[in-house]
Structures are given as C-alpha cells and as structure tokens.
C-alpha cells in the first residue's frame, strides 16, 4: 500500500463522513446503493462512518459522473482508458467517467463475455476511489483494491490484506478486530 505525499487523512474530529451525489446526474437509488455498499466495505475495517447527505454543500465527499473536460484539469477520455479519479483527504472530490458503460448488478460476469466487453463494474471502481478519498495511493499488489488497473467486466470489491493494513495505518481498526473476536467469527 502507499499514501499520498505527506500522508493526508481526514481529521480525528471528523470520523463521520457524509457524501452527496451531483444532482444533475439524476442517479437512481439502485446506482446510489452501489456506492453505499462500497463505503460500507471501508467502514467495516476502520472507525469511519459514512452517511448519505442530500446537501451538496455540507457533504464531505461529492460524487459525480462527468464527460471529457469537466473543469478539474483532468479530462476524461471516453470509453475505457481512465475510468475515474478522486482527490486526497480532505478534499472529497470523486469523479467518474460518464462515457463508460457501468454494470451495477453486483454479479460476476460470464467468462465468455469478458473478452468482448467494455462494461465496467461500478462497485469495483467505487471501492478503489474511496480508498483514495481516505488517503491511500496505488498499490503494486495485484489482488489489492488499490491496484491501479482493472479489466472491463472484472469485479473486485473485497478489501485485500494490503488495503486493510494501509487504511488501518491511517485510522486504526476502530475495534473491528475486537468485534470479530467477540462474535466468534474471526478466521
């Protein structure tokens, strides 16, 4: 795992982070639910909590789909290429390429279809970008969520050991190991 230069993170007084969607995207609840699932994966291993806000101005994290040049100096390039980008803490800017075809089902794709598709699993990308929003950089570990590349059709949403160690270096585990022990579920 790696961090942004200077290891920026959300301040200790702000462990309850809110996120909002750019209203112009008119996202359905089904799409918004994908992001909720992605945030929950990071909340499970940290003391951080994430709640959806309807107010763009009060939210810590703003999520939006944009095409081409969208004003932040990092234009999107159409289908495939770059899929999304996100800022380091505490900026909270999460942009996704509006020209991609996004899969929101949460199901594995048939291996026969994989080589001929450019449909990208939204939750996989969301989990990765949230890692950036929380302070993680890219990782060379191919199984890690923070590995920079993902092939069309692939789904990778489970945090790897490398991701968990990285994020807990920044925020601690929030008692997640204790929770596992008391519930008897630790393997």
């Amino acid at each position: 795992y790696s961090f942004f230069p200077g290891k920026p993170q959300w301040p200790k007084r702000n462990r309850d982070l809110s996120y909002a969607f750019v209203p112009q995207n008119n996202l359905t609840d089904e799409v918004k639910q994908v992001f909720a699932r992605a945030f929950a994966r990071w909340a499970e291993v940290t003391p951080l909590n994430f709640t959806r806000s309807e107010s763009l101005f009060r939210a810590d994290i703003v999520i939006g789909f944009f095409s081409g040049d969208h004003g932040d100096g990092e234009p999107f390039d159409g289908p495939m290429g770059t899929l999304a980008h996100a800022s380091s803490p505490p900026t909270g800017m999460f942009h996704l390429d509006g020209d991609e075809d996004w899969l929101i089902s949460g199901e594995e794709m048939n291996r026969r279809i994989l080589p001929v598709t450019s449909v990208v699993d939204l939750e996989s990308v969301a989990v990765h970008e949230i890692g950036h929003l929380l302070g993680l950089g890219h990782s060379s570990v191919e199984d890690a969520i923070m590995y920079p590349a993902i092939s069309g059709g692939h789904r990778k949403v489970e945090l790897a050991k490398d991701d968990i160690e990285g994020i807990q270096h920044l925020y601690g585990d929030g008692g997640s190991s204790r929770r596992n022990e008391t519930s008897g579920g630790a393997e």
Partner: protein
Amino acid sequence: TFYTNVSSVPPLHLLNATRSAWETFEKLAGCHAGNKTDGLSKLKQYFRRFGYISSASVANFTDDFDDVLESAISTYQKNFNLEVTGKLDAPTLQQIVKPRCGNPDMIDGASGMNAGRKLRAVAR
C-alpha cells in the same frame, strides 16, 4: 449508461465496445532505445499523466525513444511487477492498454508502489 445485469447489454454493443482509448499503443510493440516511431510522443504523454515523466523534464514530446522514456518504462514495469526490460515488450503494452484509475501512480517523482521501495533480504 448503467446496466442492471450483463444480459441487458446489447450484443452488438458488446462487440463494438472492445476498443480501448489507448489501443493505438499496441502498434509500438518491440520499440526500444534509439528508435523513432510515430506514437511514442503520445505514449510519453501517457507516462507524464501517471507521474512517470515529470512535466518539467520535457517541454515538447518527440517520437524518439530516448532515455526519459526508457526510464519511465522501467519504473512502470517495476510498479506493475513486470520484467524490467526498459523496452515496449508485449506484457508491458498489454498492461498499458488496460483501463485504469486516473490518479497518478507517482507524485513528484516519488512512488509508494514497488518502484519506490527498497528490497530487503533477510539471511537465515
């Protein structure tokens, strides 16, 4: 476009959608130091975008396979666990054309990925 399941993606759309934004790089296979080939300047822009070439080091990108590009390729290969050859071999190009996150791998020439780490060996 959002698809709620794979079967809702039109078949023709699937077949037409395999083009990558960077698939033109595939024709650069086999290029190495000393070559001058159309498209290398675009590849340099790719490496600059992801932090492998600093904006300050090159004002105008040419199609020359120079030391700057060779160094960028070597660092990229380290970061992605590829054999470090400094050449545009097939595994490197296959990795380059994959869709990816737009955040850079290196910031101000530094990386927390493999290329920024020292290998440690422990004698037992």
